[in-house]
């Protein structure tokens, strides 16, 4: 723990990565070939042998691994719901990073942790235009996140997922953005105040209902937080947008005749997307709980499982 703190002061950020080895695909199944986090890490800080570990001497806290991990073994510790509430108080909010003193209405430890799901959720919760303040990223050891975020923004925009929500832009120089103070005038203040109460109440209601206690028990099933956010937001979207989200984020698991109904896939799934309804039959697939990690396919002894992108 002492080491971690040392690194925090070096980079000026705060350690916002929470690690739950019991959710790691490799820890659940020793023959899994998943190395998404290690491939995403620019500093080779992630160890996958014996246990999932992050070397505090190498980690710079860019959170790219958390955006790559499909199961929530590596996750941002920040309360994303609180962050959204803060942003929703202003019409054209700015999201920044807690390492700099740059202007922002809310901050995260590093914007590298914003996965596509986060971007879609932000876009459909906020109004106006959301600016990601990345004006100081060039001076930071985590500068690599800028191109990654641009790629993600592009991908989400290509899929048409910003069409019905607010625009998200990335500001690399101070000229790219306008910072408006939160309270402007009496009328504006009260309007924003009223809106924020409704919005935060809605967020609190939905979040307390879905929030799951984090445990290190291997048999505990839950969705990663960003998938939980996406699931929440989907409830209120138009059928056309919902269809696009389905295409981009959902997967379908199907069984062929080789399945021996052993229910092993039900056990290995970290998210609870496969459930036993009848022990004599193939498991039931719950599309809303599937993150498409593919672990069930790797684990199946009968080779009877097929995972295809896009939901049914």
């Amino acid at each position: 723990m002492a080491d971690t703190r040392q690194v925090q002061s070096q980079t000026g950020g705060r350690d916002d990565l929470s690690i739950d080895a019991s959710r790691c695909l490799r820890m659940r199944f020793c023959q899994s070939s998943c190395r998404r986090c290690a491939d995403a890490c620019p500093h080779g800080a992630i160890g996958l042998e014996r246990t999932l570990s992050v070397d505090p001497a190498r980690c710079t806290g860019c959170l790219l691994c958390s955006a790559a991990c499909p199961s929530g073994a590596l996750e941002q510790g920040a309360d994303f719901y609180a962050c959204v509430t803060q942003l929703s108080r202003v019409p054209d909010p700015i999201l920044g990073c807690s390492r700099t003193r740059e202007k922002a209405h809310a901050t995260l430890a590093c914007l590298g942790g914003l996965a596509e799901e986060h971007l879609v959720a932000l876009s459909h919760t906020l109004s106006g235009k959301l600016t990601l303040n990345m004006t100081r990223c060039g001076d930071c050891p985590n500068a690599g996140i800028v191109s990654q975020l641009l790629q993600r923004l592009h991908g989400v925009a290509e899929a048409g997922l910003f069409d019905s929500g607010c625009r998200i832009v990335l500001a690399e120089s101070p000229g790219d953005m306008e910072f408006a103070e939160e309270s402007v005038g009496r009328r504006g203040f009260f309007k924003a105040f009223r809106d924020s109460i409704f919005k935060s109440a809605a967020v609190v209601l939905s979040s307390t209902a879905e929030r799951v206690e984090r445990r290190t028990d291997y048999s505990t099933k839950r969705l990663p937080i960003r998938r939980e956010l996406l699931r929440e937001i989907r409830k209120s979207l138009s059928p056309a947008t919902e269809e696009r989200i389905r295409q981009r984020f959902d997967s379908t698991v199907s069984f062929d005749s080789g399945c021996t109904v052993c229910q092993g896939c039900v056990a290995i799934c970290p998210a609870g997307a496969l459930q036993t309804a009848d022990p004599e039959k193939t498991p039931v697939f719950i599309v809303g709980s599937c993150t498409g990690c593919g672990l069930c396919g790797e684990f199946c002894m009968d080779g009877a499982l097929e995972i295809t992108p896009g939901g049914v």
Partner: protein
Amino acid sequence: MPKQYGMVIDLQRCVGCGACALACKTENNTQSAGKGQTFNWADYIYKEEGKFPKLSYTAIPVLCNHCTDAPCVKACPVQPKSMFKTADGITMHNDERCIGCRRCQKACPYSATDVAREKAAYSVISVNDGVSEPHQMYRDGGELIKGCTASGAETAKAAGDIPPSRHDYSHPDYASVRNKGIAEKCIFCEHRVKKGELPNCVVACPAKARIFGDLNDSGSEPAQLLKKHKAMRLKQEKGTKPNVAYIRAFKGINKA
């Protein structure tokens, strides 16, 4: 030499009373059999062979063999292994890391994933299903005999625990009552052995047919017995090197 805990069962002493199985159930709070699972960490089988009047009847106590080359350990997919060997040669199971995939049960020559379907006489590994909480009997509000007895749930409530007779022990790897969705098996009562006590099945055996100890210590009672008698081990042909041995067998046991 590191320890290798093991057990010798003297079949000429065993009367087949089943006290070992009962003692195990009370010690380890195992639930009633159901859904193809026995939950009998210590179990016994009866074998009747031949035709009258040339009949033979044998009682064989069975339990986890704590194999030296345990296939259940090899099959366990998680890291670190949920099923593992301790330094003392016990095949231990950690319940926090278990995902309930049943690979241990499939790999074990002494277990069946469903005893009814596979027509198995016993299964040393049982799996709590992932759907319902264990000990359903004590969660059921229905009276056992209508208008006459209390319900299981009432009994459990009055006793303040599930099961009502819960023996609460602490073990670093094992909860005294296992959660749903995980496997469970005999751990040679390691929580007792650590304190210098014997496994409860050994203590309970009225005929002193179960002899527990370190098989690698040539002075120990089980090691002495193995030197003196020709021992038989269940399904030795599987090459798992079981550490539960049977001595002084009557005729017919070899087919168990």
